[in-house]
């Protein structure tokens, strides 16, 4: 059986089946009112979620800044995370809002190029954004762990070196966990986009 035989079967089949699938105007209008679930929209939703969750921490962090009976290093950490969140929100609005939708009006190759470039740009920014927070977050975690030990055992003393060592130990765990999450959510999409583009560009 040759390609033209398949073409004949296709045309026969379509002629039979399409007459059975008629959708009226009302149904079409109802569909247009639904929200899109394309790849870019999903990525944007995830980023929206990240930003909103980060923003929720701002009021308690500001509260920490203005407390008199709190150790100074807590205030430094709070200050760092307030700045970090604001920088994140700023870049989010500046960079991402202009690419909030999938660009479908061009040909397939252009759409794939556009989506791949934007997708990798967003993923890179997301990785950088997450990586910036890992080291201070892990160090702060070590300090808080130490505070807890001190609370249970007031005679216990921890050197700065011990805190640094514990930070060095836990930071890779946080780093690889975040990398795993990002790869799980976005890596497969990116690989598929690259593969499709390569296939189209191959001569």
């Amino acid at each position, binding site marked *: *059986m*040759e*390609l033209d*035989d*398949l*073409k004949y*079967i*296709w*045309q*026969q*089949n*379509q002629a039979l*089946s*399409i007459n059975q*699938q*008629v*959708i*009226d*105007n009302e149904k*079409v209008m109802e*569909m*247009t009112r*639904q*929200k*899109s*679930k*394309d*790849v870019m929209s999903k990525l944007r939703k995830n980023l929206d979620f990240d930003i909103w969750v980060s923003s929720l921490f701002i009021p308690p962090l500001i509260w920490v800044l203005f407390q008199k009976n709190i150790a100074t290093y807590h205030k430094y950490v709070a200050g760092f995370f307030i700045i970090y969140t604001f920088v994140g929100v700023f870049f989010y609005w500046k960079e991402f809002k202009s690419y909030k*939708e*999938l660009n*479908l*009006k*061009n*040909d*397939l*190759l*252009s*759409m*794939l190029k556009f*989506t791949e470039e934007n997708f990798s740009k967003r993923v890179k920014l997301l990785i950088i954004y997450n990586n910036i927070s890992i080291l201070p977050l892990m160090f702060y975690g070590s300090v808080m762990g130490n505070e807890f030990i001190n609370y249970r055992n007031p005679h216990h003393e921890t050197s700065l070196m011990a805190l640094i060592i514990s930070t060095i130990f836990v930071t890779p765990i946080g780093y690889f966990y975040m990398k795993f999450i990002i790869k799980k959510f976005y890596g*497969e*999409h990116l690989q*598929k*986009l690259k593969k*499709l583009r390569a*296939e*189209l*560009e191959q*001569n």
Partner: protein
Amino acid sequence: MIKTHQGILHKVCGMYRHDPDDKKDLFQEIVIQLWRAFPKFRQESKISTWIYQIALNVAISDFRKESRRPKRVELSENLLNISDNIYDNSTEEQIKIMHHAIAQLSEIEKAIVMLYFEEKDNEEIAEIVGITQNNVRVKMTRIREKLRTIVSKNNE
């Protein structure tokens, strides 16, 4: 416009999705994207070309996994003994052979072969897919070979 050209949407959905619910989801997504993109339609190309472009872009960029395992075409004993003259078989069997063969093509090849089945010439296929006409010819030759191999394997 969508109502008039809904045949294109059904064809694209049928090509890229097997499960009826997945087909509906893809159909809806294409309708949403056509609705969004329509104000930017410049009428530089035919409306059907533009609809194919959007529909294929949506279908190919939609990476949601199918909700159920794709219903693979079961190869019955009759199907495995296809005679050289395919038109002696029933229409249903021919359609099964066609779906089985198409299912083994890549997403890109599916798009190109569908446009070919729809009587689009190389120029229009090149416009929709975004490659040169020469590249379309090369890909068509490969698809032709691939489909011939798939069908002949089933015949053995």
